[in-house]
């Protein structure tokens, strides 16, 4: 008995000591990070810019650090302003843990993460959602990638040049091999982009690159150099690096050539990439469990950047990621960026280390101006903007974990965010005055507003695929339907309804039966006011064009600008908004100009003006942008970062393969070139 008791006690002591050690290491890391940040601020105060680690140790302003840090890396951004530590999303340098928790280790045996069920099959043509793309990117590489600096970063491409505005030349790294040991050549790159262009079988891919395809004239391999590939554009778009170079993974020509139905190619060869990992579970790759996502990936020991730091990635079932992290079932877990994470759930994991970053996804109210009065009148939309208290929503719905959406449509953390936009701070009286000016007033003294007889309001009902538009006439109360996704936030829609009640506008929240039904309603424009959640509003500001004026992408959840005004410059729907046509024309012109404007400051001015127009015309109201959160095991892998501007081809996420490959937040470790 005594032996048993002693055994139990010793086990407790061992665990306790190990925990203390883990915590000690974490404290040491944080202390080192703060020291480096202080040194950077001192350097910047004297030099007007941030310095490299070398400069901090032996720089022009003396020895700010006694020796190079082994725990923290720095990455000064060229031209970055001295904005102060603690706000590094806008500052000119980034710090990060170098090889967290085990700075001398060259590898981490395993990371176990929560499997995502809703992401298709991770082949280049069958992933369906961003988590699926990220999984696909473990096995496949694009030409360039992004790390925690958010800047394009050589990946399959060793270097690139832009000899003239319409030409991009890429030189591939030498010695890169596909998982089946075939060499990667420029032919593969040219094949990839020719295989996915419109009219070709590969066009079935959901890659983000397709948004910029209209600007892509040709992609050809240099016959004289097997590592050189040339992209010719018919329009010098600013988003080439984001959309084309990062947006599509390169696929092997010897596997995909002649495949007529790539989406349904599920055999093992569909997973042959150049990527840092190979899927090893399930053993039969054609049996990949789409419904559970449970799978494992082992490091590609022949990877061109060296054997990845994390040697094995396991994705396991976890009904609740936070509880699974807490119980040690997984190493790290990011709760949904939606507001569905309760304070109670977060309190239960408050002892775990976490990383919190500004988000890009937003929940947004969209107006379909094409439905007519009053949605096509800016005063109505502004009235709703004045009555909806976005800061209150951040407090009530997000418990402060996020920001109110910008009225200019970009994420609040976006570097091109326009200053001084109309804020539409809650002002019930102003909202009432605007409604009064439209003749939407309470004529029968029931406390609720009715529409003017001369211009009856439209109410959109009906099924998602067959909308029915009726007119609400005096003395009927005007009750606009607000269509939502059934998985959307009922707390948010309830709050919106209450805000509208405050100005005497009765409204009806109409959730569709299923998310697909809601998608169908939005794509078919059978709504007048819709609340949806979407988007990476941290992308290149060209997103303003693609979301609000592009004929292809704006069909979802946007019936504004060009859709209302008409693609050919002729109004396709009556609008009673004075000056709308002028504004729409200006917005569309700016959208097209900024897409190809080579001068950064000129382009920024155009982007700022576009935001101003959006803020003034209110085609949408971005309600809030939740922060991103990831929790990880105490003492566990801690180099997580949310890629500024979004992980290539997908929204911001902590699951950027760069961190698994290098174990670092930016750059490549020594030995990886």
């Amino acid at each position: 008995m005594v032996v048993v008791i002693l055994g139990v006690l010793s086990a407790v002591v061992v665990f306790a000591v190990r925990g203390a050690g883990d915590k000690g290491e974490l404290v040491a890391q944080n202390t080192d990070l703060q020291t480096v940040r202080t040194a950077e601020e001192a350097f910047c105060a004297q030099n007007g810019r941030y310095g490299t680690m070398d400069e901090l140790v032996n720089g022009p302003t003396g020895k700010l650090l006694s020796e190079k840090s082994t725990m923290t890396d720095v990455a000064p951004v060229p031209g970055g302003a001295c904005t102060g530590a603690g706000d590094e999303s806008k500052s000119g340098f980034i710090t990060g843990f170098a090889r967290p928790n085990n700075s001398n280790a060259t590898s981490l045996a395993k990371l176990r993460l929560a499997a995502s069920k809703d992401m298709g099959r991770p082949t280049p043509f069958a992933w369906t959602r961003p988590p699926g793309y990220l999984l696909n990117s473990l096995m496949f590489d694009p030409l360039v990638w992004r790390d925690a600096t958010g800047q394009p970063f050589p990946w399959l491409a060793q270097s690139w040049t832009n000899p003239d505005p319409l030409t991009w030349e890429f030189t591939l790294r030498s010695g890169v091999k596909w998982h089946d040991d075939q060499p990667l050549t420029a032919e593969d790159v040219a094949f990839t982009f020719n295989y996915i262009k419109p009219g070709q079988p590969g066009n079935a891919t959901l890659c983000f690159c397709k948004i910029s395809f209209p600007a892509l004239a040709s992609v050809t391999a240099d016959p004289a150099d097997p590592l050189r590939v040339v992209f010719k554009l018919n329009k010098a778009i600013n988003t080439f690096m984001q959309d084309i170079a990062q947006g599509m993974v390169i696929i092997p020509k010897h596997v995909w050539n002649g495949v007529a139905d790539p989406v349904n190619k599920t055999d093992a060869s569909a997973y042959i990439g150049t990527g840092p990992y190979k899927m090893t579970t399930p053993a039969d790759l054609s049996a990949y469990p789409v419904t559970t996502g449970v799978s494992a990936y082992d490091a590609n020991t022949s990877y061109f950047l060296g054997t990845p730091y994390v040697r094995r990635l396991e994705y396991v079932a976890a009904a609740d990621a936070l509880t699974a992290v807490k119980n040690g079932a997984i190493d790290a877990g990011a709760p949904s960026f939606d507001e569905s994470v309760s304070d109670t759930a977060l309190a239960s994991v408050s002892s775990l280390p976490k990383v919190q970053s500004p988000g890009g996804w937003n929940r947004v109210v969209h107006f379909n101006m094409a439905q007519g009065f009053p949605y096509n009148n800016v005063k109505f939309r502004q009235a709703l903007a004045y009555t909806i208290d976005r800061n209150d929503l951040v407090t009530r719905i997000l418990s402060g974990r996020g920001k109110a959406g910008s009225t200019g449509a970009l994420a609040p953390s976006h570097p091109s965010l326009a200053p001084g936009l109309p804020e539409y701070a809650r002002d019930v009286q102003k909202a009432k005055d605007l409604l009064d000016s439209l003749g939407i007033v309470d004529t029968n003294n029931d406390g609720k507003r009715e529409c003017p007889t001369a211009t009856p309001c439209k109410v959109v009902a009906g099924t998602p695929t067959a909308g029915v538009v009726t007119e609400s006439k005096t003395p009927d109360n005007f009750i606009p339907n607000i269509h939502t996704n059934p998985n959307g936030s009922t707390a948010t829609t309830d709050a919106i309804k209450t805000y509208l009640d405050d100005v005497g506008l009765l409204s009806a929240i109409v959730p569709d039966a299923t998310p697909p039904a809601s998608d169908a309603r939005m794509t078919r424009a059978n709504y007048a006011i819709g609340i949806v959640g979407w988007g990476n509003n941290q992308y290149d500001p060209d997103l303003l064009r693609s979301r609000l004026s592009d004929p292809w992408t704006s069909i979802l959840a946007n019936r504004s600008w060009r859709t209302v005004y008409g693609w050919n410059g002729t109004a396709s729907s009556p609008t009673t908004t004075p000056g709308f046509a002028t504004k729409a024309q200006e917005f569309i012109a700016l959208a097209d100009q900024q897409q190809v404007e080579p001068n950064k400051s000129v382009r920024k001015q155009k982007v700022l003006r576009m935001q101003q127009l959006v803020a003034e015309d209110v085609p949408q109201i971005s309600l809030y942008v939740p922060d991103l959160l990831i929790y990880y095991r105490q003492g566990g892998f801690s180099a997580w970062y949310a890629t500024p501007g979004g992980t290539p081809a997908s929204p911001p996420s902590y699951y950027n393969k760069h961190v698994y490959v290098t174990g670092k937040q930016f750059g490549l470790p020594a030995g990886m070139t």
Partner: protein
Amino acid sequence: MVAGYVVTVWIVVTVVFGLPRALPGDPITASIQDASAVSPELRTMMERRYGLDRPLIEQYGSYLAGLARGDLGESISLRTPVATALKAHLPWTLLLVGTSLALSSLASFIAGVNAAWRRGSFDDRFSVVTMTGLHAIPDYALSIILVIGLAVTVPLFPLGGGAEPFTDDAPLVSRAVDLGYHLVLPAAALSLSLMATKFLILRSAMVSVLGSEYMVAARAKGLSERRLKYRHAGRNALGPFLNLVGIQAGAAVGAAIFIEAVFDYPGMTSLLLPAIGQLDFPLIDGCFLVLALLVLTANLVVDLVQSRIDPRTAG
């Protein structure tokens, strides 16, 4: 009986085919998050591939023809044959539902017989109150209570999943133990939620049986208490109990949907819920058809057993 079974199956097949297609939305948009990324060419190609471009009646005809050949079609969202998807998930649901039905039936039979035998005693009253309480708790709530109690607060059992992943090479015995370990909480939740009704029905039937004259006669013959309780009273109280087991096969499948979701158990729920969300018609058809056939088969088996135990119910 068989003819009735066939007609029922046909009705089920028709309803299962028609209902998902009555839902608003379309599978092509639904299977892709960013619907704006679906080019017209891709949409046309996918609609042709899955036969969605044909009139509904034609689709129904080819669905029936496929069923006759044993072909359940191809899942739109999974891009695999529906039969393959079912093969991967159905065994988990069968394991959970089968185990729970068996456990709950055995436990409620023993508890019901004993409670009725000691009618009015503390044990009886305690059992009735407990079972009534259990009956009032929804199965998903029971699951959450078990997760919080025995997987989170006191982490005795795994949070979820059907087995420890990546252990395909482990010895058969340890894999079997692991399966059982992961099955404990979901099976407990389902068994507890199924037990109460059966207990109350059996206890009631048993009370009636205990007042019968043949029980007095049997007791007068000096038979042992155990023999009296189980062979004479228990067996004769089995009728309504067995009927309930048959009916509960359907309820158990329904409850398993919720319980699997809470425990992230890799059964039919992980197939069915996304299939509904993505309007994957062939997969929804396949799931519902198999589940309906399961329930029908369970009822058929119960009918056959019933007629064997009590010949009066045959025919």
